[in-house]
């Protein structure tokens, strides 16, 4: 499996400490994402955003969580065989894991390039396929981690500190 990491400045050590010993979350939010279900896709992200809003998280951070989560949720819907989203809520940050059931990324760096897209006509008709989803996730998260390979599943996880 190939791996990709992005750390925004000053987050690398903090994040490595977190991943070396993941503490027990205060709250875990679980969602199933069905294949090509564009009617319900986005609901998980809306619920995660709402949950953090109720916790009193700042509007700018809410927006970053919403953008990140929505793009990843739509990618599972549009490009994968379905999957799950797990939102781990901590007092100072959120850790969200997007796990699908394949078909995986041939080349992660290529997928990360703004404008790169393999979106089908159906997906493009819905307004997706600009190739900006993964770059948006990178721009809006403090830490982004992808593990994937062709004909395998894709795991994307992000950290956003409040």
């Amino acid at each position, binding site marked *: 499996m190939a791996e990709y990491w992005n750390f925004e400045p000053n987050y690398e050590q903090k994040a490595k400490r977190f991943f070396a010993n993941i503490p027990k979350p205060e709250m875990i939010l679980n969602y199933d994402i069905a294949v090509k279900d*564009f009617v319900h896709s986005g609901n998980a992200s809306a619920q995660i955003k709402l949950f953090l809003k109720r916790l009193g998280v700042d509007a700018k951070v809410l*927006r970053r969580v919403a953008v990140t989560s*929505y793009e990843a949720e739509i990618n599972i819907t549009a490009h994968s065989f379905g999957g799950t989203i797990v939102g781990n809520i901590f007092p100072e940050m959120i850790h969200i894991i997007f796990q699908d059931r394949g078909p995986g990324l041939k080349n992660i760096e290529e997928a990360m390039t703004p404008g790169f897209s393999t979106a089908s006509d159906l997906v493009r008709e819905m*307004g*997706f*396929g*600009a*190739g900006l989803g993964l*770059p*948006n996730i990178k721009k809006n998260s403090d830490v982004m981690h992808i593990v994937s390979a062709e004909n395998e599943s894709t795991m994307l996880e992000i950290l956003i500190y409040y």
Partner: protein
Amino acid sequence: MSIKLDVYIEAINGEILTENVDYKNIELDDGYCSDLLSDVMGNALDNQVWITIMRHLNVIAVASLTGVPAVVFTKNIKPDVAVIEKANNEEICLITCKLSSFEASGILYQLLKK
């Protein structure tokens, strides 16, 4: 400079599709014109009206997540009832007008004296 949404709706001869949204109290400082949802997702802000020809349900999800208070569909495009219903639930104002996105954007640009 900012304007009220109802002033803009009148200027583009728009038809309001949603109910219960207090559009007279929505202030606009800016607009965003795009039909690519991830472009809007990455750039649109909560003080902007979004001008588009996309009419799918995902438009409402993107408007809601970015905080855009109003969406203008151009070229006389009207979304399905399900889309309008979701917008009502999310308190997003939907407007349709006969103009092109270019014209609707140009009018807003002039009103805002950009």
